[in-house]
């Protein structure tokens, strides 16, 4: 067999199973016990610009990560890059299509078994389609991926994760106030790409704030983060004028990633709940999404749609 493994540096002591130690007696430090480690941070849409940026920012802080990507092959390169750059940070990869509820159910069930605790759930996944697409379960793709899938995932994890320890739920969104068409949530009657996309983001906000009300007694929190206009792949199917605008005024995702990591980890934000963060500042949200009646109406409608997807096979 080819001896292609790394050889220990000269002058250092190689300990089988323990990598390379600088001194044999550093065992004492190793044995002294490590404080309760950080629970992992779950990031959906980790292949996107903001998702990858926040993953890097958190890895730099030595936070263990669970990256949720639509396909395993799509997540591999992000994962490998992070593992290579931060070899001492645990980076896990799970795959599931957030627009496909049976896929969400399956992956979430595996996830809650392997991660009984999470430090944060950071919803970065988002999709914009030019034409109306339907998932195998008969759902409009943007509504399904941007709202319903994250709704189902969050609800499943909320039910099963340890409630006594804090988990921060952060939705990456924008201050959308595009109305929700409750009578046509799947855009069957009318579909226009940008309004439908904006409605799906409104739905996300309504859910985020509905969740925040349910967490009012702590220690869990639900907040929204607006990264600003970021140059990302999200708008690749948007009209050219929108793409041109985003290219012109958009900022690099790195800064958004740093701010988002701060919202997900800062000790000073432990009790921040139901807030809308614009970068690291607290902004205001449209009245439309603060309406409790509307929040609950969407919650019930979402539950109803999910119950219709229950029987679908993966």
């Amino acid at each position, binding site marked *: *067999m080819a*001896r*292609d*493994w*790394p*050889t*220990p540096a000269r002058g250092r002591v*190689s*300990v*089988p*199973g*323990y*990598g*390379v130690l600088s001194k044999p007696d550093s*065992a004492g430090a*190793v*044995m002294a*016990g*490590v404080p*309760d*480690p950080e629970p992992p941070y779950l990031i959906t849409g980790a292949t996107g610009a903001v998702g990858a940026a926040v993953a890097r920012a958190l890895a730099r802080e030595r936070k*263990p990560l669970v990256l949720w990507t639509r396909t*395993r092959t799509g*997540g*591999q390169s992000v*994962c490998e890059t992070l*593992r290579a750059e931060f*070899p001492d940070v*645990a*980076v*896990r*990869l*799970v795959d599931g299509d957030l627009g496909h509820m049976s896929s969400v159910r399956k992956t979430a069930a*595996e996830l*809650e*078994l*392997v*991660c*009984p*605790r999470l430090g944060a759930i950071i919803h970065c996944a988002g999709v914009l389609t030019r034409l109306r697409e339907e998932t195998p379960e008969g759902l409009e793709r943007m509504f399904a991926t941007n709202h319903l899938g994250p709704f189902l995932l969050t609800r499943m994890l909320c039910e*099963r994760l*340890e409630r006594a320890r804090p988990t921060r739920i952060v939705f990456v969104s924008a201050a959308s106030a595009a109305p929700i068409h409750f009578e046509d949530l799947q855009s069957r009657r009318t579909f226009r790409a940008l309004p439908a996309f904006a409605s799906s983001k409104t739905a996300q906000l309504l859910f985020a704030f509905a969740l925040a009300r349910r967490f009012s007694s702590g220690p869990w929190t639900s907040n929204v983060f607006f990264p600003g206009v970021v140059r990302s792949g999200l708008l690749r199917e948007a009209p050219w004028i929108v793409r041109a605008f985003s290219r012109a005024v958009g900022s690099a995702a790195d800064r958004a990633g740093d701010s988002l990591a701060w919202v997900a980890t800062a000790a000073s934000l432990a009790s921040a709940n139901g807030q809308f963060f614009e970068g690291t500042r607290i902004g205001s949200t449209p009245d439309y999404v603060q309406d409790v009646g509307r929040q609950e109406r969407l919650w019930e409608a979402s539950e109803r749609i999910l119950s219709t997807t229950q029987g679908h096979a993966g």
Partner: protein
Amino acid sequence: MEWKGKVVLVAGVGGGLGSALVQVLCSAGATTIAVARRTGSLSPLEALARAQGWSFRSLSADLGRPAEVGRVFERVTDEFGPLDGLSVNAGHWVVGDPLLHKSSDDEWTKGLSDNLDPMFFVCRAALPAMIARGRGAIVLVSATERVRYSGNASYCASKGALVDLGAKLAHDYRSSGIRVNVVLPGSMEHDVDVSAPPQEAATLRLRDQSGVGAWEVARTIRFLLSDEARWVSGAAVRVDGGFSTHGKEQPSVGVP
């Protein structure tokens, strides 16, 4: 001993030892991946892990098939990155006459392949990531001599081969920071009650005939996989409560 954040794969969770090992690892805080051929042996562990809040992942695969082992490790490497520990428990007692001249062709070939193939396929799949990382711990499960000698010739030959295989791996991958050890259990319970977590404080009687049980072997494997055992490599560790040294001889088999 700090197990939190560590990822260990237990290959072969069909019998009692695998279940016990998953439980002692999980209860210590390790993220434990259990691989078994039948999902039936995994679901009680899943339920237990859920109830206990353990970090647990189950995958089903036939560890005697290289393609399935490859698929499992591809999945595990993507999902978890490199493993901290690996225990290969797959294998079984070979039913048949203990005497070689009375053994059938099938007993011989099947006994060897069922007990040795998973060791080869699983280690081959697991080693590259450990080598790349420069650390890792592997335990292979053999059997104590008296158990080996009382079994079918193929069982004895395969479990004996594992002792040498473990030592060879320990030799070959020492410079990669990988420790490999072999445990030699005495007789063990086959069905571990998954609803009963291990009793750390239980007093055990060292008996002549029966083994000390799957829980005790599991605890030893956990130790060998842990950083506490970082100076232990290439060892073959008997875990039989002294069965091998103090016991009465087995009733003699009728040699014609």
